[in-house]
């Protein structure tokens, strides 16, 4: 039994080495193929990976010439650092200048530094929350970019918690102590969410 067991265990050892080699190669193939496919699909169908795009219209630099398209993920940071989701090679721009997220057909932008950020001509201070709709023009240190949210983009599947701006900051914006920009854009109104909710309630009651 011992001799047979020794032979069998040795054979099993070789077999195990072959099996794990096959497993590693299969897993590697599957991982790489899947990754390549995803990248290709995301490149062709931007709405899978991106929510919209910013097209440079005015005041472009060498690295950011007019017509350059910057793709916007569903949330991220905007700044001069290469690690940002939207990298703007603009002089005197903070490494992380603002953060944003896309909710439905709106892009929310909150500056976190004192850069010259304007949305449709209105200057934003750090902590102000701007809701930009399709066609809104974002100006960062003199470079104007037009926003385009992809049509029928799915947005976030379910509205997750919104931890980006603290309650105190929101209250500040809504009470008008901050800049108080409710909604900016070609199709948007400048009413705060609370005002809109109150109006909707009145309409429902009517």
């Amino acid at each position, binding site marked *: 039994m011992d001799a047979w067991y020794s032979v069998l*265990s040795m054979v099993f050892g070789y077999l195990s080495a072959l099996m794990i080699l096959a497993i590693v190669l299969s897993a590697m193939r599957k991982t790489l193929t899947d990754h390549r496919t995803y990248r290709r699909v995301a490149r062709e169908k931007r709405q899978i990976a991106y929510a919209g795009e910013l097209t440079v219209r005015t005041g472009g630099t060498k690295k950011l010439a007019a017509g350059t398209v910057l793709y916007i993920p569903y949330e991220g940071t905007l700044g001069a650092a290469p690690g940002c989701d939207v990298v703007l090679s603009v002089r005197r721009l903070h490494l992380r200048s603002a953060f944003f997220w896309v909710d439905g057909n709106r892009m929310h932008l909150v500056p976190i530094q004192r850069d010259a950020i304007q949305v449709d001509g209105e200057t934003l201070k750090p902590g102000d929350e701007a809701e930009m709709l399709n066609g809104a023009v974002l100006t960062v240190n003199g470079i104007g970019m037009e926003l385009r949210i992809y049509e029928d983009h799915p947005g976030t599947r379910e509205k997750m*918690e919104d*931890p980006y701006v603290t309650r105190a900051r929101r209250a500040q914006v809504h009470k008008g102590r901050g800049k108080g920009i409710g909604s900016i854009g070609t199709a948007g109104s400048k009413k705060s969410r609370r005002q809109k909710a109150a109006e909707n309630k009145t309409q429902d009651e009517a």
Partner: protein
Amino acid sequence: MPKKREEVYTGRRMRRTEKPPEAAGSVRGKSETAGTDSRGSGKKEKSRLRPEHMTDVRKAAKQVNRNPGQARGGVTAVELASLIRRKPDFPVVLIAVLTAVFETLGLMLAAAHTQQTVGMDSVAMIAVIVPLGLFTSLILPRFLRMDALIMALTNFLCGVGIVTLCTVSPLRGNRQILSYALSLGGMVIACLAVTHLNRYHGVTIFLMIAGIGILVLPLIYGQWNNGAKNWVSMPLLGSFQPSELVKISAVFALAYYFSAHRTLIQMMPALLFSGVCLLILMLQRDLGTALIYYLSTLTVFYVACGNIPLTMLGAVGGVGAAVMGYRMFAHVKVRVAMWRNPWSDPTGGGYQIIQALLAISSGGLFGMGLGQGTPEKIPAYYNDFIFAVICEQFGQIFGVLLLAVYALLLLRTVMLSSRSRHSLTMLLGYGTAAMLGIQTFMITAGVIKLVPLTGVTMPFLSYGGSSLLSCMTMIGIVHGIAGRAQMEAEDGILLKGGIRN
């Protein structure tokens, strides 16, 4: 010709619907209608998928499959369908089948080694573990949107651990099978929670409070064991290691409070939680786990904010804490000394590392065979040093490839996490990968004398219910992230009518 193929495809759809696609409510048409309705009624029906949408994609994929290589607009329907396919494909099936073969042969050999015969016990073990592995790798991903590859690789790692344990310590092997079955339940719960949970605030707060609560238990009820006081024995739950379970709380806390590009002050709750955990672990003298927590926090912090100066400051602080720990704790000094020269005390402090190195070297390239060698000479051969036992029995090539499996598992986790649209779920994935990766590196490098040895378990392989439950729950979190990413990809493809291009 691409044009001809397009005609064939469109023709098939038109024949099926017998109306123009838009009028008949094609994928695009339906979604647009649903979107309009939902806007009107205020309901969120826009992102809901219907079964017929999936059928459309599958049929389109099947249709295009007949003419492989065709492309419409650069992306084939097959490629689109592959992103949202739930059915495991060939590599996953191959891995699952090979795992089943490995487990069956290994458990039969283990039974023959320990009992001199293949009895009912081994048949029962095979009857439990093999169907469980096949079910979770091939069938469960179809229903729960889990990532089949990650599941198959995890099952393989668990299988290797169980076969090794059944050979060197049958009683522990049997218990490990039970732990494996139970931890699969934890994995499914974590997967469902992450896939469907939208409000993380309450869950994170609860996990943080519960985590601190159970982490202090060993300080009150625990007993010193191998220089640490990190185990606790409860009347109903049995003995467990709280620091393993608190890893889940740490991952959630880090992801939640580091997500959404918060400021340093807004990140403070997670940093404080990590600090308190580290303090408690230092009091328990569980320095290996403390190091995992610390490095994971640093990794997630860097991923979240990309702030190199602050990360470097944290790293420097960690080095300072390590130096302080070296001067404060005697057993740390011993471990460092044994790492530098284990032969200075071959029968005392350096015994286990010397035995582990001898076991690895005696295994050679292809190993001594299952059940051969003398693994019991290594202290803690069933948990901390299981990698040395595997190298002795299966060989160094097998050991290196096993590390490759870990690397692929982590790579896949990172890839799936980077597809996530929310920074929270992305950081959950990165946190999980950091925890598992750092733990694997620390114990493997410790066993082969690359770094000083720390008393942590090898994920999925080592004996221990707490460790396995914690690791499988983290894998469940990754499955949840994968499921979420798949749902979002489905939305992106189907709502845009991507399959029709």
